């Protein structure tokens, strides 16, 4: 490789950032600020892109649930053998929750979503500082998390027909909870980042959807 001009260097820059430092290219690189800048930029892009791998998230549980339904409809998977339902965990909360009519449950989920949407989509006043915004976000999202947790406890207490399905839903719930934790962390770190707030809102929405599904399944066999 003879890299004596910027054009030559550009033609071999991929090899360069891959670690192949030919002496000719080295000589040009040392004396050319433009090519040094190019290499720095490409390395910065590569490094940021690689860090995304650590941020990989699970798709929401609705993906697997819809997929499974589709596979069942296509006749591609066999129905799991029906098993005896798991023993019911009773308590004052489950009694209270079961006593609620279905529209009231739907209303509770809807209220959570509306409140989340309000809290997370308020227009940001660029003049207020991050600390104040963060404080406001916490004030709004803390009761939402608490309300979702209450719904979760209630959903857990419902009877389910299939322990495998229950286990799968609980696993999905754990994934969503992890996702919410990550999103909340992002919002705390970058309170003015609209994308982070969107993700957090979607995370709450996913949890509400999942709890609604669990309730639906639980109530279907009451």
């Amino acid at each position, binding site marked *: 490789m003879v890299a004596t001009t*910027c*054009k030559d260097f*550009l*033609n071999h*820059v*991929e090899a360069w950032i891959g670690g192949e430092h030919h002496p000719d290219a080295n000589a040009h690189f040392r004396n050319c*600020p*433009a*090519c*040094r*800048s*190019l290499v*720095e*930029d*490409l*390395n*910065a*892009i*590569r*490094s*940021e*892109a*690689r*860090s*995304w*791998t650590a*941020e*990989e*998230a*699970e*798709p*929401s549980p*609705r*993906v*697997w649930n*819809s*997929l*499974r339904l*589709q*596979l069942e409809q*296509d006749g*591609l*998977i*066999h*129905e*799991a053998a029906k098993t005896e339902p798991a023993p019911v965990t009773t308590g004052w909360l489950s009694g209270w929750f079961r006593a609620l009519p279905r529209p009231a449950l739907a209303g509770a989920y809807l209220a959570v979503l509306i409140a989340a949407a309000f809290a997370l989509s308020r227009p940001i006043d660029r003049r207020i500082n991050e600390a104040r915004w963060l404080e406001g976000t916490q004030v709004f999202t803390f009761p939402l998390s608490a309300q979702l947790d209450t719904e979760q406890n209630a959903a857990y207490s419902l009877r389910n027909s299939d322990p*495998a399905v229950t286990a*799968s839903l609980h696993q999905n719930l754990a994934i969503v909870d992890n996702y919410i934790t990550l999103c909340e962390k992002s919002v705390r770190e970058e309170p003015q*980042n609209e*994308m982070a707030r*969107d*993700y957090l809102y*979607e995370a709450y929405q996913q949890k509400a959807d999942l709890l609604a599904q669990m309730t639906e399944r639980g109530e279907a066999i009451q």
Partner: protein
Amino acid sequence: MPEADAIRLAQQGDAPAFERLYRLHSRRVYSLCLRMVGNTAEAEDLTQEAFLQLFRKISTFRGESAFSTWLHRLAVNVVLMKLRKKSGTETSLDEMTEPDEESGGPRRDFGGPDLRLSGSVDRVNLQRAVEQLPPGYKAVFVLHDVQGYEHNEIADIMQCSIGNSKSQLHKARMRLRELLHEALRAKAREERKAAGADSGGED
């Protein structure tokens, strides 16, 4: 359950085996879709579609290529198909690059020492730039630089040559650099304008 067993059982219609395969690969497939389309709801729909296609064809899987390569090939095709429909054109993968760059060779925009990206590339502005890439560049960039696939694997997934994969990646990175520089310049202009307005307001 090891992947090979899950594949064999899924071919016989075993429900937990399907779920096992889904759990093994959904994160990567979803991540690929998300980086390609930049929208969580759309990425989930594409993930579902990719797995649906995979499971519908799983009885034909004979293990000639790695299962994940096969799945990623399906996922990339699903995403590219979606992007083609969005743009309203029927184009081949090779055409999903920028014609001026294809014919004109690499751009000669080297930038300068006064305008460096180092320290200013973050998740948000890089994601914005990636969204502006032509689909072919985007796919290779995400597979290589984000997901860490090698060029021979990308060639398998994209059904192109290794040289083509390398060339697309180079063009993708150069285009990203250009887009990030443009964003930096726009930001600097905005800041100057805001500073001007502030000092004007104080007078």
